[in-house]
């Protein structure tokens, strides 16, 4: 029964992914200046024949719906065209950079959840205590804080002033662990390389905190309010009346229920994480797809922009899919 619902939900993402691809395609095609002009601008003087040849090569001489069909059928096969500036397949560029971004996003996610969930719970259990007031004030700052500025301030404080944490890159040159997954932290653990593990974690710290801070702030607030709501419920009273310890009442009976709204919020916030990712990667010179995208935007490298935007949107759709599926497992009442 539940399996069927999950399958249904998975299938329902297909039209969305399709729509996303169409929107990306349209936005890219209906903009002034076609990609060929951009390329020509770079190559200096070229003849009309060369231009026509290029147009044929990119399929720009075909009617728009044929172009759309070509774009989609290639995209399905993982072919997102060639970068105009790097002269390599977009998919290869993305694949190369993706692990860095995934590592950063996971770092931010882990940081924000590990920090925010306990804070939200403690703030609710000890409502109006000092801990509650202090962490809610911090969370309020967190939701009002521009990520790019937080990143720069943390560089000024931790790298420049205190000099205790690196401010750019993933690892010093030559310390890369043997590649297994491309995630340096994970690879260092898998290959038992302690020095690169330490270095990778130190490099990961500031960017993850910067990227995860807004999410941590929101999750802490939501967690607190849903926990407060749950603690008022009769089933919490019943759990106490059963003779459970307060710890068991909170961690077993209250927490699971309070996590239900939090999970939804985490799903929505993934979008903020992905958008912030471009900025954080720019600030910390993090070699992921966010920087790739920003560079591509400045170089008007349309196929690359198109490819990266597709990847982002796809990630967001998949993240929400994952959240919805997780949801069915913690909330038995839900019907997708």
């Amino acid at each position: 029964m539940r399996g069927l619902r999950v399958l249904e939900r998975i299938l329902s993402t297909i039209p969305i992914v399709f729509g996303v691809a169409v929107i990306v395609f349209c936005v890219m095609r209906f903009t002034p200046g076609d990609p060929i002009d951009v390329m020509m601008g770079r190559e200096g003087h070229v003849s009309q024949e060369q231009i026509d040849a290029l147009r044929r090569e990119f399929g720009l001489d075909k009617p728009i719906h044929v172009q759309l069909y070509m774009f989609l059928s290639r995209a399905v096969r993982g072919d997102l065209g060639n970068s105009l500036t790097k002269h390599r397949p977009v998919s290869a560029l993305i694949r190369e950079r993706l692990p860095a971004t995934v590592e950063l996003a996971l770092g931010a996610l882990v940081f924000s959840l590990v920090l925010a969930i306990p804070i939200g719970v403690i703030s609710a259990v000890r409502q109006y205590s000092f801990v509650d007031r202090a962490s809610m004030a911090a969370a309020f700052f967190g939701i009002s804080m521009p990520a790019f500025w937080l990143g720069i301030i943390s560089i000024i404080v931790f790298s420049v002033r205190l000099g205790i944490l690196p401010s750019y890159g993933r690892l010093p040159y030559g310390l890369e662990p043997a590649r297994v997954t491309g995630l340096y932290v994970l690879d260092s653990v898998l290959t038992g390389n302690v020095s690169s593990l330490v270095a990778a974690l130190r490099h990961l710290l500031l960017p993850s905190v910067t990227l995860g801070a807004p999410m941590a702030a929101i999750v802490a607030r939501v967690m607190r309010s849903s926990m407060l709501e749950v603690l008022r419920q009769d089933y919490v009273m019943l759990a106490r009346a059963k003779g459970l310890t307060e710890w068991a009442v909170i961690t077993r009976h209250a927490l699971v229920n309070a996590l239900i709204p939090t999970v939804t919020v985490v799903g929505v916030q993934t979008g903020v994480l992905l958008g912030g990712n471009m900025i954080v990667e720019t600030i910390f010179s993090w070699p992921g797809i966010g920087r790739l995208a920003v560079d591509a935007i400045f170089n008007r490298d349309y196929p690359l922009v198109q490819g990266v935007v597709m990847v982002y949107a796809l990630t967001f759709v998949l993240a929400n899919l994952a959240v919805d599926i997780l949801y069915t497992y913690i909330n038995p009442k839900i019907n997708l």
Partner: protein
Amino acid sequence: MLMRVRTVARNLCGLLYLICRHPSALIGLVILVAYVVMALFAPVLAPYPPNTGSVRQSFLPPAWQEGGSPAHLLGTDHVGRDILSRIIYGARVSLWVGVLSVAISMVVGLVLGAISGYYRGIIDDVLSRFAELLMAFPFLLFAIGVMAILGPGFFNLIAALTFKSWVEFFRLVRGETISEKTKEYVEAARAQGQSNFRIVTGEILPNIIHSVVVLATLRVGYMIITEASLSFLGIGVQPGVPAWGSMVDDGRDYVRTAWWVSTMPGLALLLLVLAINLFGEGLRDILDPRLKVD
């Protein structure tokens, strides 16, 4: 008509009274008003024009630091421009972009949401699907993409920000309209033979407008942050126009030697967004106790 105006005026006075009794909302409002004054009277208040400076005067630290001078309270940037003056002028971009993009999104979302929620049917299906599709793009990413194509500029910025954010209002208004539509007072209005237009604008709208106002206030802060992020990436307003995001970006290369260039405009931004959020959340406590806006 006159009675209408009077009622509205009385409601606004009542609201102002409630805000004054809500300390954090009041603090937010006061700071917000200060920023608006600052933006309006920038030429009078700013000690220097925003774009003049000489390289000989570059990287002067803030007045309280060693080597700083009272002539440049918050110091100067890499080309010797006065940071305080640029912050004061920068308030214009932030406030305009924030207010305009939210206002447009609100109007679009309100109209489409009311139509969608009231009439349902095919219009609702189409609009809802489209909204769902837009939701598949992270907001900042979408804005970056649109800006990348349109190029920098004030109106492009507004377009990029509104393009997706009307969906928030649309979803709120649509949902509220659907639930209000079934209530007795709407039935009563219909029984009286009121036109659909009158029912929506005269009966339903006044009952959902509170939530919409609260959402709008809270969105302004987010829009301002997004604008600053875009300017920070160099795809916001045109180069040369003083905007806080691009000022932070200007200072990025000099964080080792001149921390104030990036720090000060960011502080101005943080304070404004804090004020808006304080005000917005206070407004939510007052107007939307059922917490429909999250």
